[in-house]
């Protein structure tokens, strides 16, 4: 009897029928965590629902998802209602979601927060555990997937910035059940070598599930306990993993980790070459300037006729002594003139000088004593007075006293 054979399409359609006619799969309620969520331009939503052990692809058409009361996103735990059917072109079964509700925050995220809080409380992420990153690591150990995009980024950045740096790759899977063990093993191996100055542990971007290996307690303790400084570069800018918190330095991306690990020698080399050139240029200029100054001094005629110094000084001495005698002379002349002026002034003040100009002095004769009369109050009628004139004296008797009238 000839065995019956089927085409691929026939098998697929047969299975499709089985699924469609199954009472349970026809109308089903599935609880899981959203991952790889993608809202297509067409309006349909494509994603997977997963738990710790398995995963099912799901689609929610525009007509069903337009009245969702939340924005689905990776890591979110949901309860989806719909049916299981087979998508013939790919031969894949999937969950056709007709409605969906939130089941609270995703389990994984909750686990992450719990672990973070626990290790934080313990002080595992404290600054005292952070080691300084070496300025010029000679050899860098790299823990990541040997086939990934992260390794390409890291190696090319390091080579571009400083080709002197050696790299030793200890490959490890960066997701899946074997991943944590491999990451720890590679890390431990590199840390135990004595020629590794710095370790980079890294992985490209992905969902929370994809990065889950980096949220492991044992790995975190391995990172903190390592004696080699460690830079982490896991996922994208916004991804924070436990490994990032445990590392001595966290970089936002794999290539940023390489940049933090290795200085850009291109610019440092330029700066050095420039300084090197300047040092010689500056000292040459200094010497040239000093020589110029010396030449200038040597050109002075003093060096050819030293006696010029003496004759110059003699001349200067003569000048000074001339100045001095002139100064003395004019000093005494000034004084002399001053004395002449003062004696003239003194002369003018003498009473005899006043008499010569026609004024007179009147004195009251009183018991042989004479007293100068300066007011009519000093005299009475009948008093004897003496008037002194420039060439003699008058003796008189007061006949009358008349007060000056003030008009």
């Amino acid at each position: 009897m000839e065995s019956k054979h089927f085409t691929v399409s026939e098998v697929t359609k047969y299975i499709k029928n089985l699924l469609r006619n199954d009472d349970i799969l026809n109308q089903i309620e599935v609880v899981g965590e959203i991952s790889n969520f993608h809202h297509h331009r067409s309006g349909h939503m494509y994603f997977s629902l997963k738990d710790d052990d398995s995963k099912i692809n799901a689609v929610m058409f525009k007509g069903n998802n337009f009245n969702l009361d939340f924005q689905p996103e990776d890591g979110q735990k949901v309860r989806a209602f719909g049916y299981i059917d087979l998508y013939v072109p790919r031969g894949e079964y999937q969950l056709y979601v007709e409605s969906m509700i939130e089941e609270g925050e995703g389990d994984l995220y909750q686990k992450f927060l719990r672990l973070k809080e626990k290790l934080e409380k313990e002080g595992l992420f404290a600054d005292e555990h952070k080691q300084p990153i070496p300025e010029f690591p000679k050899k860098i150990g790299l823990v990541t997937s040997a086939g990934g995009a992260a390794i390409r980024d890291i190696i090319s950045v390091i080579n571009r910035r400083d080709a002197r740096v050696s790299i030793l790759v200890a490959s490890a899977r960066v997701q899946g059940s074997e991943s944590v063990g491999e990451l720890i093993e590679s890390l431990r191996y590199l840390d135990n070598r004595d020629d590794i100055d710095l370790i980079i542990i890294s992985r490209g971007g992905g969902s929370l599930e994809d990065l889950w290996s980096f949220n492991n307690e044992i790995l975190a303790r391995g990172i903190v306990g390592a004696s080699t400084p460690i830079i982490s570069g896991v996922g994208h800018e916004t991804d924070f993993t436990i490994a990032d918190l445990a590392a001595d330095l966290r970089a936002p991306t794999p290539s940023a980790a390489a940049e933090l690990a290795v200085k850009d020698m291109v610019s440092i080399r330029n700066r050095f070459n420039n300084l090197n050139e300047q040092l010689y240029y500056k000292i040459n200029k200094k010497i040239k300037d000093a020589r110029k100054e010396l030449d200038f001094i040597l050109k002075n005629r003093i060096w050819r006729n030293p006696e010029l110094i003496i004759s110059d000084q003699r001349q200067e001495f003569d000048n000074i002594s001339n100045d001095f005698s002139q100064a003395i002379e004019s000093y005494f002349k000034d004084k002399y003139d001053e004395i002449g002026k003062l004696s003239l002034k003194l002369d003018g003040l003498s009473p005899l000088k006043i008499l010569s100009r026609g004024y007179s002095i009147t004195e009251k004769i009183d018991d042989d004593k004479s007293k100068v009369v300066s007011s009519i109050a000093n005299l009475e009628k009948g008093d004897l007075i003496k008037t002194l004139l420039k060439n003699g004296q008058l003796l008189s008797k007061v006949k009358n006293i008349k007060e000056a009238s003030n008009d």
Partner: protein
Amino acid sequence: MTDKFNKEELSFEEAIDKLDVIVKELDSDLLSLDEAMDRFTEGLKLIKFCQRELDKAEGKLEQIVKEDGEFSKVISFDLPGEENNNQEDD
């Protein structure tokens, strides 16, 4: 001063910064020729120190692989080409 040129005590960046300071000092008129020569000699030492760092040979790119389940063999590592793009598991 000279004992500071030990690698442990003076970092490369510090050496470059010091060199920068010396070049600036040589530019000013405040230094006597004697002082300038001293600075220059110090600068030469720094240059020698930096040059030694810069002249180091190109590094190696290697991978450690397992033999009988143990990391034991160092082989040279080639960057995965563009065709390996899809192996990124994200």
